[in-house]
């Protein structure tokens, strides 16, 4: 037990989780914006935009996240010299956020589209009937209802994103949890199980409230029909 406690002093486990939380928040924000845009493209009346949105979703949903993040490091940074900040580690952190956002935007798009499916067709027809064109109809009538119907699936995407943020190790974000866990195991193989459970429980603590919150919110905010 003492061995294990000394470990928590020696390694910044909370700091590592904070890095994952930051990755999640930034990637969550960007993927939400990009995902909403993609969802609009997919429900828009313009065929080429529909096609583009569908192509994006199918490409990134079916590409392993590890490959996207490894490409960010090996391809964008390693071969093309692409950076997002003068400080190397900040740059790699942002490239990892970019990779996470690009990947999860595909899932956000599908979650929002599922929300759009909860909005009866009559709503769109009514919006058209009072003279709204596509964008105002989407912004004023369809999306507000769609988001409320999409809370539960969006919560699932967020939960997946939290856990997937550990893959940022492939993009050389070296201070996040999975890296710190590897480091701890490398040095303290004598307490390998306590180390593992520390991180497993840490993620459970992060994820369960989100699940509870989104379930509650999805019931509370769903549009009653």
């Amino acid at each position: 037990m003492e061995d294990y406690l000394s470990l928590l002093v020696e390694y910044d486990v909370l700091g590592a989780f904070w890095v994952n939380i930051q990755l999640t928040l930034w990637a969550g924000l960007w993927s939400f914006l990009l995902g909403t845009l993609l969802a609009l493209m997919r429900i828009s009346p313009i065929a080429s935009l529909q096609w583009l949105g569908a192509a994006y979703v199918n490409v990134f949903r079916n590409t392993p996240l590890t490959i996207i993040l490894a490409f960010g490091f090996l391809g964008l940074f390693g071969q093309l010299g692409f950076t997002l900040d003068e400080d190397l580690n900040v740059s790699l952190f942002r490239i990892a956020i970019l990779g996470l956002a690009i990947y999860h935007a595909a899932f956000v798009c599908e979650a929002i589209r599922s929300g759009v499916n909860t909005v009866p067709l009559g709503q769109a027809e009514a919006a058209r009937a009072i003279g709204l064109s596509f964008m105002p109809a989407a912004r004023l009538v369809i999306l507000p209802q769609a988001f409320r119907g999409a809370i539960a699936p969006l919560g699932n995407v967020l939960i997946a994103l939290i856990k997937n943020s550990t893959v940022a190790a492939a993009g050389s974000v070296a201070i996040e949890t999975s890296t710190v866990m590897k480091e701890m195991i490398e040095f303290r193989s004598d307490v390998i199980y306590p180390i593992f459970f520390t991180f497993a429980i840490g993620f459970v603590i992060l994820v369960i409230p989100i699940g509870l919150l989104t379930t509650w919110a999805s019931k509370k905010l769903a549009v009653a029909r």
Partner: protein
Amino acid sequence: MRTTRYAAAAMAAAAALTLSACGGGGESGGEGGGEGGGEAGGETVRIGIKFDQPGLGFDEGGSYTGFDVDVAKYVAGELGYTEDQIEWVESPSANRENMLANEQVDMIFATYSITDTRKETVDFAGPYFIAGQDLLVPADSDISGPEDLEGKNLCSVTGSTSATKIKEEYPGVNLVEQPGYAECVSVMASGAIDAVTTDDIILAGLAANAESGDFKVVGNTFSEERYGVGLTKGSELCSDINAAIEKMIEEGAWEEALQNNLEGVDYEPNAELNPPTPDDCA
């Protein structure tokens, strides 16, 4: 009705296939473990090595090469196993202790540094080589040691001892961590990073294997890594393995294995420490 019958037939066929596959596996397993006493007999020995470290433990499409592999073959030979009786198992760094504790392997030759915390869960024979942390740099680089790395980009493997040492002792270095050394070397070839760090012998193997660009090992080690043979806690093999390592060094086979595996690289292992004398078995 007809579809049900077809489904049932298909399931029966699938079950039969599965069962026969099990039977086959069991049979060959039985052959392998048949012998009990005697000098190894028809048994196999499971040896854990790295599959991704050229020059040390490397999987070349099913045949295994490298210094670790050669030492393992020699030691296994001394213990009474022929090469056919060796079953090579991949043992990545993070899994080594568990693989020994769960008896998935009998011994591990995988650039496994002897440390006190590791000794609490596993036993070690050896060391059979003493490496040191060093730098791999482009051939025309003027970096001559960790002091020259201030503000430079350095690459190492995620969570490794080498990466941690840099973080602790040289905080001014931009350290990037990748899943493997191959990634580090490929990025260094394009010029985005200035150096790669880990044990000198691993770097020498990488330099020998590098396809693009010429690299050199700086040759200014700043740690001492004593590579041991990982054994299950309480294993009785330790003294036999140590005797085999000593014999290998005396016979000159150790030197030869080192030369063969690091051919064409400008690298000399630390001559004060190598070849090492194995520790006493506890």
